[in-house]
């Protein structure tokens, strides 16, 4: 999965448990676990907004993209360095 979720890192930095976060943003612990373990297919903007508001961070602090080695991206645009 080229998109990685760093929710656990962010929670550790903020010294917050997943349960506390789920209570703070009113999302079930099961759904947050799905997000944390990278099993989610999609994230709602409202969820992302709530997480960023509570953890005082940016979406980029929680999500990152890493191209899969050996996988060609047809729509990849080569930018000059």
């Amino acid at each position, binding site marked *: 999965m080229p998109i990685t979720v760093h929710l656990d890192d962010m929670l550790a930095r903020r010294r917050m448990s997943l349960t506390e976060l789920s209570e703070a943003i009113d*999302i079930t612990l099961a*759904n*947050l676990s*799905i*997000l944390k373990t990278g099993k*989610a*297919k999609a*994230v*709602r903007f409202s*969820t992302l907004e709530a997480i960023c508001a509570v953890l005082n961070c940016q979406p980029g602090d929680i999500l990152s993209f890493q191209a899969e080695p050996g996988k060609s991206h047809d729509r990849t645009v080569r930018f000059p360095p």
Partner: protein
Amino acid sequence: MNGLLFVAIAAGLASSWAFHGFYRAMLVKADPTVDVAAALLGIRLLMLIGVAMTIASDRLLVPLASIAASAAHGDPFAPANAAGLRQIGWALLALQMLDVPCALLARFWPSLGAAAPAGDISVGGWLATLMVFVLARVFATGSAMRDDLAGTV
């Protein structure tokens, strides 16, 4: 029930050769002027259509029972149900197609007499067939959307 009907019609069809004399006697008794060979062939064709109809009905009823059971469980939007609806659509199409030989027998086989089928082409049946295929597409899309939603946080 449908299986019993299949066995009964298939047995009747087989017995038309095994007990040829009995059938001949029965036909002559009903109408002494009847063309026995033509009437017997017509009856065999009717029973053959009947066998095909029971097979098509079975292909319709089995997935229908499965869909009804999944709906009772509260989970009707499943890919399996979309496939089941498509199967029902094909079975309905087969049943509509089988109306054609019935209509031909009714119109061009006078030796069948009172045994001739109604032989109507059902407009409602064709519309229902089309609707089931459309519904199968709706279910396929709906189940895919539900899968996506299940993975959305």
